[in-house]
């Protein structure tokens, strides 16, 4: 398996809410859904926790360290502060240029 995104790539976290559809175990914090960030590092491949939690066969997925500006997420905070979060590849989509400029 190769990582789809390289360090420096602009991405968006999928604006998806599986918890509204039924029982699930997800490691993507709610406050990042739909938010844009930058790939900082590829951390490796790990069995998908969303399957592990239910004792299902868990395919390995690429895990990234993704950097976000902190103030836009909460509409408060200090410019320059940031959040660095582990996110699995299936939660990432490329940020579109239009949204990057916004």
């Amino acid at each position: 398996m190769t990582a789809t995104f390289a360090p420096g790539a602009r991405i968006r976290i999928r604006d998806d809410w599986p918890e509204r559809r039924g029982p699930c175990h997800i490691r993507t914090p709610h406050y990042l859904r739909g938010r844009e960030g930058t790939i900082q590092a590829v951390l490796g491949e790990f069995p998908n926790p969303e399957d592990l939690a239910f004792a299902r066969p868990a395919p390995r997925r690429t895990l990234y360290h993704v950097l976000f500006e902190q103030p836009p997420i909460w509409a408060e905070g200090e410019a320059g502060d940031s959040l660095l979060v582990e996110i699995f590849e299936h939660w990432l989509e490329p940020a579109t240029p239009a949204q990057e400029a916004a």
Partner: protein
Amino acid sequence: MSAPARPESLALLDKFVAALATRGLVTEQEIADRQASTDRASPEIGARMVARAWLDEGYRRLLLANGAAAAEQMGVSMAGAPPLGVLEDRPGLHHLVVCTLCSCYPRAVLGYPPHWYKSFEYRARAVREPRAVLAEWGTTLPPATQIRVVDSTADYRWMVLPMRPPGTEGWSEDQLTAIVTRDALVGVALPRLPVAAAAE
């Protein structure tokens, strides 16, 4: 650690362990070994790793590249433990670790997490208003320092490599280890010189 276990909980645990053993998933010995290594782990391990990194550039590079290998060099068995990532503070950048989803913590090198690390208050606030949290800790960062909050959401465990404070020139590894507290390894505090040393 907390309230004594209820008898029915212990009975349930016995049955659970027996079921795991029957399926060949784990042995009593493996559980005892893991329990012993968790009990042995304390923040002093992480503190010593930091002190050594301050003194030994080769060790610092290893620590940042592969925290687990650096821990193994300290005699910590990392077999079966999650990978250890190390976040290096530098002038202008301070790291703070939290686990908003549960209480992921680098137990292999810091021991059991403190109660506040697992509290809803810390988990909710560290990620949203880290500066207010640090202020309540009495932690003052140098001016123009950006904060990077690291939310430990998945398979890694994270530890901070703080900056070596001025006034520690010529200190031994033991002396340096003594000023690196658990709180400094999480990022809610900075290594501080004892009052006597600071006054010299």
